């Protein structure tokens, strides 16, 4: 297709992806409040709309009308820029996530991905690394001891667990032979032992999957690793001095990161959009996207379930766990995977 068509199609895809992502962020907040509520034997939001479904709308209106105060003692340029940095990098990763096979609309073959880069996984890791700046700078620029400590702790935690995260993903890359997300999903098609799908979690990367899950919980600052923003510990950590829309931006960035992590886990370990496909061509195009969405939803549900269930780590336990247990385990997983693939004991693609 020519350049103009490509630009128009990409614009449409970008707008659609952003709208869907932001709606998903708003409704994962709703889901969290409901699920954690039921775990704690209470209802969660029920009054605003049926089942409290309009609660995110009410929250959005509240954030817009709330007083946006800027304390006088903050370092203004970075104070205002930090939530924007967090949100921008949290929303950028969605551009690399493929959600289904190619569709053909009006004769054009359109991949269901905004940017099919052949180093897609590396770009997502890079964008995640840059997201640490939002946290660190917000903590420092707020000029308050709780914020500074919370910001430092949060960024130290994120940088430490990024290593284990990256190493757990390299096992998948070794098995797929490519860094492109679409290729990694394509390498997981088919079955082995007749009925078990060849998803990476069943096909040898089970340890890698759990390392990824734990590192991802720490990376997104969620329970059991949410000490930097726990209310009983540091008031509210790095976002103590923020109100209204800037706080909402941090909030959205955290949930958008959760969704990105869930999408990555689905793509890399659970076969992406693999699932039973049947029926007329329209259904065949939509069903993979549906399977992808179901798997991402299950991941987010597990995220929220863990939040409602586990107590949090103390900071020194957290850092010791990341460096002394998770990192050696991730390296061992990588070495073992590389050995298995090199000796061709396991038949892989690429």
């Amino acid at each position, binding site marked *: 297709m020519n350049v103009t068509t490509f630009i128009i199609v990409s614009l449409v895809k970008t707008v659609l992806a952003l709208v869907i992502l932001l709606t998903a962020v708003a409704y994962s907040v709703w889901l969290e409040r409901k699920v954690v509520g039921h775990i704690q034997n209470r209802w969660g939001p029920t009054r605003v709309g049926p089942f409290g479904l309009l609660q995110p709308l009410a929250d959005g209106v509240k954030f817009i009308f709330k007083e946006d105060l800027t304390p006088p003692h903050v370092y203004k340029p970075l104070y205002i820029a930090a939530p924007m940095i967090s949100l921008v990098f949290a929303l950028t990763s969605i551009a690399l996530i493929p959600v289904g096979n190619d569709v053909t609309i009006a004769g054009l073959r359109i991949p269901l991905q905004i940017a099919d880069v052949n180093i897609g996984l590396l770009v997502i*890791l890079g964008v995640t690394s840059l997201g640490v*700046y939002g946290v660190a700078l917000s903590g420092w620029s707020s000029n308050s001891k709780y914020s500074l400590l919370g910001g430092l702790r949060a960024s130290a935690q994120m940088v430490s667990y990024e290593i284990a995260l990256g190493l757990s993903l390299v096992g998948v890359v070794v098995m797929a032979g490519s860094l492109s997300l679409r290729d990694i999903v394509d390498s997981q098609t088919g079955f082995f032992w007749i009925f078990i799908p060849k998803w990476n979690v069943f096909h040898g990367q089970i340890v890698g999957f759990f390392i990824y899950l734990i590192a991802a919980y720490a990376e997104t600052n969620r329970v059991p690793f949410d000490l930097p923003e726990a209310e009983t510990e540091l008031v509210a950590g790095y976002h103590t001095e923020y109100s209204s829309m800037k706080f909402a931006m941090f909030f959205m960035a955290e949930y958008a990161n959760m969704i990105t992590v869930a999408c990555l886990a689905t793509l890399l370990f659970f076969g992406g959009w693999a699932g039973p496909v049947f029926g007329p061509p329209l259904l065949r195009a939509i069903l993979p996207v549906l399977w992808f969405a179901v798997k991402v939803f299950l991941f987010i549900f597990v995220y929220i379930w863990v939040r409602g269930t586990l107590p949090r780590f103390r900071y020194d336990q957290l850092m010791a766990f990341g460096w002394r247990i998770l990192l050696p385990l991730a390296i061992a997983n990588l070495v073992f995977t590389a050995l298995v693939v090199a000796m061709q004991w396991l038949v892989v693609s690429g």
Partner: protein
Amino acid sequence: MLHLILFLGFGAACVAGAVNLLAQRHPINSALSLVVVMGALAGEYLLLGAEFVGAVQVIVYAGAIMVLFVFVIMLLNAGEEELTKGSRVALLFGVPGLVAGSLLVAWVLLHSNTGEVAVGALPGPPKAIARLLFHDFLLPFEVTSVLVLIAIIGAVVLAARPEPPQAKRES
């Protein structure tokens, strides 16, 4: 054409970031300008066909090393730099010296015979780089990793807290 415009754009961003690094008085602004420089360099690498190096530049340099720089500045609570009185001699000899120096460097670079390589002629994709790194240049790779290990051990030894005196008295 677009390639040239993008290349010059990223180059200008790089130089602007570097000049801003020197011009800013608060160290945190300088550190953030350096992050901009790293990002612009990553863009340049992408434009030259070295996509793996570009991505790794962002992950390692802009995303980890610069974060640690920012940490240090935050922890040390470094304030704005004090401006001392300027020196007339420095201005008199410095500015013409700087201009002459840059003209000299530019002339040498433009008239030298460094040879040319087309964009994308050298290995760019990860597979090709991996083949070079782990196959043709395996020994330098291993030696470099031992060097980095020595640096880490040295840093740990230098930064370790000294033994508290009580432990020695008890033994």
